[in-house]
Structures are given as C-alpha cells and as structure tokens.
C-alpha cells in the first residue's frame, strides 16, 4: 500500500508492506537513519520521533497507521538552515552528553519535546520523562546536565 505522511515538513509517500513499522519506512524507504533500532520492542527509545507532536517509539508504530500524520525526526528538529542546531542539540554537545551517540537521536527528540511541553520540569520529572530512553555509555549524568542547560537557556533566551 501507499502511505502518505509529512516528514520534517515535507510531504512524503512510501510504498509499505502491512507489517512494516514507521521506523523501517523512515530508515529504509525515506533514507532518514537518524532514528535508531536498538531493541525494536519499545524498550530503549532509540527510535523516538514526534508523531503529530507526541513522542512515540517509531518501532512500535505501524507505518500504515501513520497515514496522514506529521512526523518529526532528529534530522528535522533544528529546522532552519544546515548546520544550525536546536537548543537541546547544542546543549548535548556542550555538556559532553554524547559518547557513542547511538542513544542520542532518541534522547534529543524526547528532551526537546520535554522542553517544549514542560519547560520548568524539575530533576525527578526530567528523569521520569527520559526514563524510556536507554543510554549504555554515559550513566545519564551529562545528559541530565545537558537538559538542565537547555532549560536555563530556554528561559533566558525565549522559546527554543
């Protein structure tokens, strides 16, 4: 079947099989490999994308169910021009929150969503919001510092 959806602001159409996930279509049909595939079971968050403004595990969404949806992946987060970073992306770079980087795209999407929906979230709330995103390298300390940095910049400098 043909599925049409809007990805990172662009209208897209892809030929998909009934069993294929949104993650598969993004990665293999549309060439957007930013979202990752560490578990394919909804346990790790490496595949996180925004679906109509909500964070979802793209591995758990059937591509067919995304018909007509608006999808934002890590590649489309910053918008604007090439090389420009979203506040959260810049904070991850500055705080040293990236090691191997495999968890990073999913965490960036989840953290950006948190910043937008609950800009004043406290430590426990941030931890809870990001607890669906596994990271094996950092122990999360630098990730939490990156989120705190983005939060304080967002309040100082207006909306992200």
């Amino acid at each position: 079947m043909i599925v049409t959806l809007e990805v990172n602001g662009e209208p897209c159409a892809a030929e998909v099989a009934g069993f294929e996930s949104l993650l598969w279509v993004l990665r293999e049909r549309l060439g957007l490999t930013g979202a990752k595939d560490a578990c394919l079971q909804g346990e790790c968050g490496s595949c996180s994308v925004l679906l109509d403004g909500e964070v979802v595990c793209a591995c758990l969404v059937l591509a067919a169910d995304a018909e007509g949806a608006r999808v934002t992946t890590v590649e489309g987060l910053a918008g604007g021009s090439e090389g420009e970073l979203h506040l959260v992306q810049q904070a991850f770079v500055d705080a040293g929150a990236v090691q191997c980087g495999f968890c990073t795209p999913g965490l960036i999407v989840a953290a950006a969503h948190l910043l937008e929906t609950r800009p004043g979230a406290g430590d426990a709330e941030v931890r809870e919001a990001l607890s669906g995103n596994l990271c094996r390298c950092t122990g999360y300390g630098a990730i939490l510092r990156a989120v705190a940095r983005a939060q304080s910049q967002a309040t100082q400098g207006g909306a992200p």
Partner: protein
Amino acid sequence: MSEVLVQRPTVRGGVGESVPRPDAVPKVTGRFDFLGDLHAEGMVWGATRRAWLPRARLVRVDVTPALTMRGVHAALTQDDVPGHRYQGQKVTDQPVLAEGEVRTWGEPVAVVAADDPETARRAADAIIVELDELEPLTDLDEALARGSVFRHVRVRRGDPDARGEVVVEDTYTTATQDPAALGTEAGLAVPDGLGGLDLWGPTQWTHVDRTQLAACLGLSPEQVRVQPCRLGGAFGSREDLSLQTHLGMLALRLGRPVKMVYDRTESFVGHVKRHGARMRYRHEADRAGRLVRVEAQLLLDGGPYELTSSAVVANSSYFALGPYRCQRVEVDGYALRTNNPPSGAMRGFGANQPCFAAEAQMDRLAEALGLDPLELRLRNAIGPGDHLATTGQLIEHPLPTAEVIRSVAAIPLPDALAPADDDPRRLPGGTGLTTPRDRVVRGVGYAVGLKNLQFSEGFDDYAEARVELTAEGARVHTAAIEVGQGMVTIIAQVVRSTLGVSQVEVAFDHTGRIGSAGSTSASRQTQMAGNAALEAATVVRTQALERLGGDHLDDAGVWRGEQLLAPLAELVADGPIEHHVRYRHRPTQQPDADGQGALHVDFCVAAHRAVVDVDPDLGLVRVVEIAIAQDVGRALNPQQLHGQIEGGIAQGMGHAIMEEVVLDAGVIRNASFTDYLLPTCLDAPEVEAVLVEQPSPWGPFGAKGMAELPTMSATPAVVAAVRAATGRALTRAPVRPEDVVGDLR
C-alpha cells in the same frame, strides 16, 4: 613521555581542556552513519539460522528450501567456508558455522542472503536443521572436575607457612553480564571486483579481524580491507568476530554487497559477555590488620570457545586480591569450557569478578578485627616501592591507592532521605509506589579496585600512527577504533599540545592504509594511540622547526623568537611534513610457573563509596549516590573523564542490583531489553568524582587509561552498601530481591 614540552600552553583545544568531541555535532543531528546505517548500491540482506539447543549433534543441514524461495540469492553452511573453517583471536577453535556439534545456544548454523531482511529471515527459518540433543556442560565445578579448562593460572608467592590468626572465608558468585552496547551487531561487505572485499563490521581491532577473516575467506590480508567502523558502543563485546565472516562469505559468493543487522535477541547470542564466576576465598590477617595470607580459587565460565578467556583469567588471577600487600598468596584461576554462551572481554576484563569477592572479604575481615573497613584497606594499601602481592612485580611508578581511599572518604555524604520525602521517584520501589517512606533503610559501602593498563604477559603490543602537517593544520592517521569513549578527542588534544597547532583532525584508516593500532581495550588507547601520535607529532614539529631554523610552531607558522619565519602554507609548500611511528610500550615479562614476573606495564586504582536506600520488605534497592576517587595519571579532558566515570559506574551498579544474563541449562531466558534490565536515568545515582592526578611515565603528558575502574569497584561498593543496610552476607552479584527478603542465610 611526560618530558615533552607544551610548545604554547595557549594552543586551543590542547591537553587539560574539556574539548567537545569532533563527532558530537553529526551525532546530535542524526547524520553520523553507524554500521547499521550503511548502504551500498545493489546490496542484499543477510540473515542467520541458529541452533536452538545448547549442545547437540548436528545431524543434517539442508538449505534447499531456502534456495527455492523467491528473492533468495544464497544459503551457505560450514561446507561453503572458502578458507580455514575455524576462527578465534588467540586460538582458532570456533567454527564459522556449526560443524559436527552445536556447542552453545544460538550458535550459527547457516547464513542466507535475500532481497530484503524479511525474506532473508523467512529463508533462514526454512532451512532444515536436524539436531540430536546432547547433555550440556553448564556447571563450573563439574567443568573443572572434567578437566574442561582453557587455561589454569597458578600464582604462588611468599612464605608458604605464613598464617594469620583472623580468618574469613566464603564462596562468591557473579552472574554473567551482557555488555549491551546500544547498537546491535551490524555490518556491510562489499566485493571489490578483484576477488577481495571491503568490510565494515563491529570491531575494536581491525587488524586482528583482518587476520582471521583473510584466513577464513581464503584471501590474502591485502585483499581484505577492514574498514574503521562507527559503533554504538562496545565495552569489550566487539573484540571477537560476530557476523563479519558470514558477510564476507555471502558477498564473495554473490559478487555483490551484503548487509546484515542483528536484532536485540540475536545480539544477546551474537557477542561475548562478562564471564560468570564462582570464587572461593580465604583471607587471613594478623591482629594488627595486616593481610598475611590469601587463598583463592577462581572459576570463570568461558563458554565453548576460547576467544579471550585465557587472557581474562590471567587478569582475574593477578588482580585477585586488589591493591593490597600480603605475605602469602595462592591463587588458582581457571577459564573453563562449558556450553554456556561464549564469554570474553568486558570493561575490566576479568578483574571485576575477584574485586567483588575480595572487597567483600576485606569488609568481613575488618568486622572480624573490629576495624573500620577503610582503615583496614589503608593498612594494606600498596603504592610505589611495594610489590604486587600476586606477581611480585615492583610498583615503580605512581599508584595512589591510599590517596584514592582517603579522597573518597573525604567527600561529604549525601543528605539523609528527608522524613517527608515521599516522592516515589526517590524511593526504592520507584513509581511502582510499593515502598512506604518509613520502611527505607540506608546503607553505605566501600570498595577499591586495581587493574593493569595495556597488554601484559610479554605480548608484543604496539600502535602505529602517522602525523601530517599541511597548510590546513595537522592530520593524524590511525587504525585505532573509536567506540564512543573519546579517543578521537584525546589524540587530537595530544597532537595540538605537542605541535602547538590548533587545527588537528583524526583520520581513521582501514587496514590497507596503516599498520595496527592494537585493540581499543585494556584501557590502552590513551597511552598507546596517544603516545604513537605524540611521538609522530614530536618528530614533525622538530622537522618543521629545522626546516627554517625556528624555535616554535603555532597556528600562524614557524617562529624564531618574536619573528614569524613563515606561515604554515609556506613551510609546507614543497609537500606536507609527515612522520610515521610504531610505538611500543616497555616490554613485559611472561609469567613463570608460579605466576611471577613484571607482567604489566602500568596500573590504575580507584575507590568507590556507595550509598543505597533499601526496601527490606520487597528487597528493592535504590542507589542514591556513588562517590569515586579515581587515579587518572593526568586529566587530559576532564569532561570526558567524568563521562567515563559516570558511564562506568552505571554499568558496575547495574551488575550489582539488576543486570544478569539468566541461564537455564545453557539457555538465555532473558535475551531482550524487556527482560534484561539496564539502568535507566531513574536508576542512575548521583555521582561525585574526584580525579587524583599523579602523572604516569607511560602515558602522553602523564595520562593513564582509566575507564575500566569506574565499573570494577562500583559493583562491590553497591553490594557492600546493601549489606550494611540489611545485615545480610550477599555473596552474589547481582543482588536479587529474594536475596534481601526472606530468611537470613
């Protein structure tokens, strides 16, 4: 090495600065291509058929049903291996695909290639495999009794008659831990049209993969170009081959690119794990709290193939006591052959398991002596001028054991759980809402770890690097593998500080372009790749200065005093200045029959303090804080060091209270992230870290490789804290709820 002068301390991005990773931006924008993101024109997808019994006679494999499916291009078995049919880093005892007998659950039996992954998976399932079940060998004592041993390391040192009055003894167990790198095994093989191929696969040492692949594929080493890979983590699990040979076989057979990606369940059987261990310890001390005698028997579960087990058990044996003096030591370490999943390298490489047992023994001894556990450790702490209690090696260089113990003890304890704090996210039961605030018991525990750096026991260990200076700055070529740990940043910082030039790029070369950098393991690349780059850069700088008679170099060019002799572009107008180095660390000795000798290059220590809150009714544990004092030699990049410390601690803490590969007669019962629990950010403790800087003569600018220690002693520290909270012996890691509740043993 520490003698090299920093040409201009003001160079941007030099040693000591928290320079961001050069690959951070592509990683945060999703544009960094990991192995699973690779694509080649015309590629097909591979899949693996695996055995479902831990041990069986392989009666029949028939690939015909797969080959007759639409979209399937090849289905290969062990008979199709073009070259040597066995692989392995040290001993080639692992069949590329099962032959004669299946020796472990999930062992690969056949591989297929098809147009898409789904067809490949169905084709693999369609292959007829007949197994005749055999009794698996899965118990360590039974393996020992049967002589199923890869290596026995025997250590005897000191006066055999030395005995202490105060004795503690027990048997300790550590479960198998999965490295669980977030990126699963993935790879791509691309035939070059001339009979050879380019291969991207998960590796920590491309040249050792090349040796094995060339042999198994029937090619010369030059025909196999193992490419630098972009890994979603490693932690040891990429030291041994997984899918590389299979990819190579399929690509050569088909003459077209083949890609393969394991899913998480397949990944659990597709890479090596931290050895499960059973350890029997007897410690004897005198009344003054001096260790007099330690006897240890260490049984490590190697699984069916040797891989790196023979080196892992050496580390277990040589670091069986931790960083303490002792008059008499008797250690027998065994790497055992079983039908459990293959074990190999994981962060700490065999030093973690005995650290768990020996540190528990130190606490028991302290209790028996009526001494503070830290005081007991301080009374026995080794440092320069002492001999390692196991191998007898003289510690000639900085080893700040007492300093890390004192430093960690000096870090203020976290606040007590506020009586009013009933936010479930701060209670052991978490958002499961199971823990009433007033039932929570707090405990504090300590542990100290000691480990070697770089390869030991006489191994000819080297790393190559080439540094080129051009008008744009310097470029460092290396075959070392960046697994996420940040070597890419460190090498550039070392070269910047050596040359005085800020614009430095690290180029990762395939095996055909440069010689081996050795493995990204054994805490070795900061010192090995780092020193190779430093030596090459030192020569480049000298040549640059000599060309024009200058006395210093920086971004502007070559200077004599205050006079700029020439900008970089002019200096290199006749071509880049370059130098290639093969750096070797000081030679080490092979052990004698008693395990004695100067077997190691350098050592590193760390001390942990864990604070936990326990729900004693349900056996749930929350790690509140881990404090660590860590020997780093010299801090080249403080931010990265803290990242390694926090990440290492999470893995060590995970192994203390949640991470275990559950084995049932050789079968993994929790091969998914649903069932194998990794720490999330709700589980991650606060970390307070102190870096102890005493420069090592063996590292660039005095640095030590350090990233294994944070994992090692975190596990025993957390379990010690749970012991303190519950009064239970807890001789097993991880601690399970049932170990905390119920009858006291």
